[in-house]
Structure formats: C-alpha cells, structure tokens
C-alpha cells in the first residue's frame, strides 16, 4: 500500500491524468470519466491529478519532519543514555515539557508569528517529533546499557561513544525504524490537519488537507469531493501503520519467540 503511494507520487512528478493547477471553469463538477478519473472540482481542476500531486506534498512534509525528529531526537536520546547524570536530566526535562506542545500547538504559535506556510508546518511537526524519538531512544538505550554485553565491551576498554555506535545503536535501531514509520503516518495526519486549518501548505500547491477544507464548503453540492482526499489520507496512514506492525514483527524476533 505504501509502495503504491510512493509510485503515485513518483509518477505524478512526470505525468498526471490532467493538470492539478489549470483552472477551467467550464469543466466544473464533472462526474468521473475517462478524461477525469474522479471528476473535477469547483474550479474544474482534475481531482485525481490533485490527489496524486498531493501525495508528493504529503510525503515531502512527512519525510523532512520525521528526519528532523529522527536525527535530533535519536542523537539526544543516545547522548542522554551514554552520559547519564545531569545531561540526561536536562534532556529528559526538556523533552518532558515539549510534550505539552503537540505539533498543532507549536504550528499555531509559529504561524501566528511567521505567518502560515508549508515550511512552518514541517518545522512544527519536526519539533514535535524530537522528544518522541528522544524518549524512545533513551528508554531502550538505557535498557541496552544495562545488558551484560555492554559491560563486556566496557571491560574491553571501549569508550562510551564507541559502545554507543557499535552496540547501542544497532540494538535500538529496529525500534526506531518502527517508530519512524508510525510517526511518518502521524506526520501525514498532522500535515493534513494543518493544511485543512489553512496553516500549512498554501495555494495553489495541492494538498489533501486543503482539498478537504475546500470540499467542506461544497458538502451539500458534491459530497464525493470530501470523500476522495480523506480516503487518500486514510489509505496512506493505514498502509504505514501496517508497515510499522509488519516491521516490528520482522525486526524483533524476541516478540515472536522468547529466547
């Protein structure tokens, strides 16, 4: 399912059934047809094309936002577990209260000051991801640090940073990957919500969330327009969640077989 989405995004870079941008008022509210697979919207834009281009947008936002969270969060988590003491305390207190600022809340603050925009929503979602990754990484890294093979590595004269890269990171990586797919799904949801509120991706870039916003005003006229973009989001998220579950089973054999 996720692969299908990626393919959609990739194809839309080169080709879409129609144009996602061209406004042809005469073609308003066309029913699905060979030319317009899912019909057209109130400006005569091709819905299928908009959806496909919207995929790109969602993926870009999610990839960048998750990467920000992943790199900063995982590094902070590893650092906290390796250093312990006050370094850990500071990092964890910091992530404690970052939890009070979910993506949408920080996006609201950012847009209030900097104005709405795609970059701000990426930043807001990315910021929100940092403590999530930091906590997860630190928690599992701490449990790895307590294992005897780490003690053995220390007895071999290896330093904290070397142990972090040779032993800790490989052992927490599977968990992080699983978490990343789940956060990827959450990022798509958050981006859609922000765009829906008008705080995210700005016109004329097509985005699933904004399509829903526009469709809502036309709910009485053409309810189907409100169905497609939502369905696209749901499929994307559903696929990613399944992928996450699947990865968990593959990467963590301890779950399926104890010892």
């Amino acid at each position, binding site marked *: 399912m996720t692969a299908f989405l990626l393919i959609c995004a990739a194809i839309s870079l080169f080709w879409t059934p129609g144009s996602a941008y061209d406004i042809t008022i005469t073609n308003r509210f066309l029913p699905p047809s060979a030319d317009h697979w899912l019909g057209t919207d109130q400006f005569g834009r091709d819905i299928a094309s908009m959806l496909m281009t919207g995929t790109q947008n969602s993926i870009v936002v999610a990839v960048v936002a998750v990467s920000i969270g992943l790199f900063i969060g995982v590094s902070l988590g590893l650092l906290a577990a390796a250093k312990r003491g006050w370094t850990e305390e500071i990092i964890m207190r910091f992530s404690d209260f970052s939890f*009070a600022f*979910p993506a949408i*809340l920080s996006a*609201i603050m950012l847009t*209030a000051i900097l104005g709405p925009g795609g970059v701000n929503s990426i930043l807001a979602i990315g910021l929100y991801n940092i403590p999530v990754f930091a906590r997860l990484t630190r928690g599992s890294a701490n449990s790895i640090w307590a294992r005897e093979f780490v003690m053995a590595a220390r007895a071999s004269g290896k330093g904290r940073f070397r142990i972090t890269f040779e032993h800790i990171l490989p052992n927490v990586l599977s968990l992080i990957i699983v978490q990343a797919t789940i956060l990827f799904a959450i990022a798509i949801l958050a981006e859609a*919500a922000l765009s829906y509120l*008008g705080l995210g991706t700005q016109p004329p870039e097509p985005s699933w969330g904004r399509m829903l916003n526009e469709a809502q005003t036309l709910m009485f006229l053409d309810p189907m327009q409100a169905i497609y973009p*939502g369905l696209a989001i749901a499929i994307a998220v*559903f696929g990613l*969640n399944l992928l996450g579950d699947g990865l968990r089973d593959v990467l963590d054999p301890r779950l399926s077989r104890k010892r």
Partner: protein
Amino acid sequence: MSVFIAKRVLTLLATLIGASIVIFLVMEILPGDPALVILGVDASDEAVRALTIELGLDRPPLERYWDWMTGILTGELGNSYAYKVPVWELVEGALLITIPLALMSITLSIVLALSIGLYAAANHNKAGDITLMGISQLGISVPNFWLAILLIILFAIELRWLPAGGFPGWKEGFWVCLKALLLPSLALATVVGAILARITRSSVLEVFREDYVRTARAKGLSQQATLWRHVLRNALIPVLTVTGIQFSALLTGTVVVENVFHIPGLGSLVLKAINNRDTIVVENVVLLLATMIIVVNFVVDILYAVIDPRLKAHDI
C-alpha cells in the same frame, strides 16, 4: 508517598513555568514585532512605534514576562488587540465549550476502548477479535477532521438527525448543547478510542501471561474472575500512560474539529486570532492548552501511584 507527590508537584510547577517561558520567547522575543504583525508590513514607522508603546512592548522582556505571569494569577490577561475586549472574556466563553467537549470525548473513547479491548482480549484470535482489531486499525488511520466531515454528511445532511455544526450556547438548554457536541466528540473519540482499544487488548493479553495470573488460576478462580480481579488493574497501567499521551492528541484534535463544526471553542478562537494577528490571544490560549495537557499528565502520574502500590514506596 509524601516525597512522590511533592516531587510530582514540583515537576508540575517547573514544567508550567518552562512552558510559559517557551511561549513567551517564541511569541515576543523571536523575530516578528507584534506591532508590525498587527499593523501589517506596510505600516508607517510612527504608527508601529506608537502601537509598541501603547501595548507596552518597549519595556524590558523580563518585566513584561513578570506582568504576564502576575496577570495570569489575577485574571488580568490584558485586552485583545483585535476586539479590544479583555482576553479573559474571550477565553472564558471558549473554555466552557472546549472543556466539556474534551471531557466528553475522552470519556467516550475510554468507554469505547475498554469494552472493545476487553472483548477482543477475551476472544483472543477468534473472529470477533480479528474483526474488531481490523476496524480499530482503520480507526487509527482516519484523520479526525475527515471523519468529522463524513459524520456531518451522514448524520446531518443525509439523515438529518443532528445539527451540522454551530453551538447554541449553554443558555439554550443542556440537551441541545449535548446534541451539538455529540458529533464532534464522536469524531474525536473514534480515533483515540481505537488506539486505546488496541493498547487495552495487548496489555490484557500480556498480563494474562504473568505468573500471578497462573497463581490465581491455580487457586481455582475461573478465567472470568481472574480477568476482573487480577488482570484488569495491572493491565490498566499502560492504558493509563497512553491515555495521558493521547489526551494531547485529543486536545489538539478539538482545535481542528471545532473548526469543522464551527463551534466557538478555544480552537476556533485561536484560529480567528491568528487570522486577526491577535498575538496576545494566541499566546494565552496556547498557554492554556499546554497547561491542560500538563495537568492531565500530572493527574495520570498520581493515578499510577493509586493503581500500583509499588510506586508509592520508591520514587520513579
């Protein structure tokens, strides 16, 4: 126990102060002069300077932060830039809608989660379990505002059972208001409830594998009795954790869903404030939302200690 609570309260206060500092820094110190934001980029320098002085923004940041904090404690939040009315008046009205909505949603999702989760766990790997878990997997994937739109299409437009949006105000009677909040809370509760249901199920199944459950069965307790007396309380611990985390998702969800239903709660207020560049309102609403999240997580921490006697003895 005393240390536990004392430590938690201290953390609560520290987190609250930390949050207020972050909000203050972001809103007032970071680039973007509020006066300039309010008047627009084309405003003349004099106008901006005049407004800066009028809003008291020329004073040192520490002093302004102090004023804000003391203002919060006395209920003096200043006046809205856009409407020229006290911020508190705007916030108060919105709170009276958002808090009931949030409470309704969280109650609904917990009820949903426990019944589905327990049923699924009791029928582990049977058809009912698999179906319910499939549905909940879908529930997790659906964006709440889309679900809200779908609910409007179904219940308001097609079936015409419930209002499509708006909020009559509490003066119009309790039931009318409840009816207006029903669809939004349903939209919010479905997603959160689906997540919690999955956690409940896996946590119950996990606890069923514990040694003390075997002890209970060895005493002669039936599967049912074991579930109620020994499994449930232990299984609630992870459920509680996730409920705490999900509350923040739920609260931000209300911001979005209120806009779908045009309900004049905090979410609508803050969005309007952004469009009006009414930073003082945004600032206070964001702090309010953050405070709610922090307080709920504090309550969750205390509940832990109630459920799990081990935590009272030694600190976490």
